[in-house]
């Protein structure tokens, strides 16, 4: 199949998924159970993306002090919890990661 067609269909499918509920929710009465589920989407999805990147940055679990991303990420969790600031969290995490990489 033509490479352009592959990209077009892949893009259309992706767009359809992005549009799905944004389109239909306005036209349908949404069951209460779905509304109750939605508030758990951000904590569940974001944590599911982040944790493997900290615990297994190279693909396999690494709980040693050699895992700089786990140390820097752990500190970032504390900073995020105390400051509630995105910028402070990024600065703290990046500085610790850079320092660990330079030091080791």
């Amino acid at each position, binding site marked *: *199949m033509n*490479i*352009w*067609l*592959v*990209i*077009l269909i*892949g*893009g259309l499918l*992706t*767009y359809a*998924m*992005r*549009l*799905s*509920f*944004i*389109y*239909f*929710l*306005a036209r349908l009465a*949404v069951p209460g*159970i779905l509304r*109750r*589920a*939605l*508030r*758990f*989407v*951000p*904590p*569940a*999805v*974001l*944590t*599911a*993306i*982040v*944790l*493997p*990147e*900290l615990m*297994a940055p190279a*693909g396999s679990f690494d709980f040693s002090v050699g895992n700089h*991303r786990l140390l*820097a*990420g752990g500190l*970032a*969790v504390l900073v*995020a919890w105390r400051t*509630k*600031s*995105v910028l402070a*969290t*990024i600065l703290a*995490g*990046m500085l610790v*990661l*850079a320092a660990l*990489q330079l030091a080791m």
Partner: protein
Amino acid sequence: MTDSARSFLAGVRSELPLLIGVFPFGLIYGASASASGLPPAVAQAMSAVVFAGAAQFIAAQLMHSGAPAAVVILTIAVVNLRHVLYSASVAPYVERLPLRWRGWLAYLLTDEAYAVTIVHYETSGMTPTGHWFFLGAGASLWTTWQLSTALGIILGTTVPAAWPLDFAVPLTFIALVMPTLIDRPAAMAALSAGVISMLARALPYQSGLMLAALAGIGVGMILEPAK
């Protein structure tokens, strides 16, 4: 300045920290796509048409290794499944907008635009110009993604991979997720999704992420006291 412009700029400002991480990600995508033999126009078009980093990386690799078209398309669809959850999650906030607005905002609904927009909506609520916040976050990400892809294609393999700038994206997600852990059901939803995602990370097509997210949502709902 109008309220719309203020809201748009607030969206851009909230997205800025993520762009630090997205820019190198786009560079690496552009460089690896052209290194794997994808024509530059195709690599760039994929950033505009598919507009989803992880899916683009995998699709470029599959095309390079000569996978059948149906496999590439199916992979893009499965890797991007989580966008259905994002769509459901933002839908209550945008349901009153005209279809034209909803159509464009859906196009801009990426991991990074979703993350800052939903946290903004949940903490400040939806305002009459709240859709401009979403547009500001999405459009600034879109522009960064297209430019960094183009630069990656031009620079090719001369892009240095040693700088760990990609770490800015998970760091931002950490900062965004902490305020959503407002009670025990939410915290347990996050914890169970995170643990399952780690254990299931080797499943094909990133399906472990979707599995983890659904399990986390289920745990949250079970623990939530019935009203």
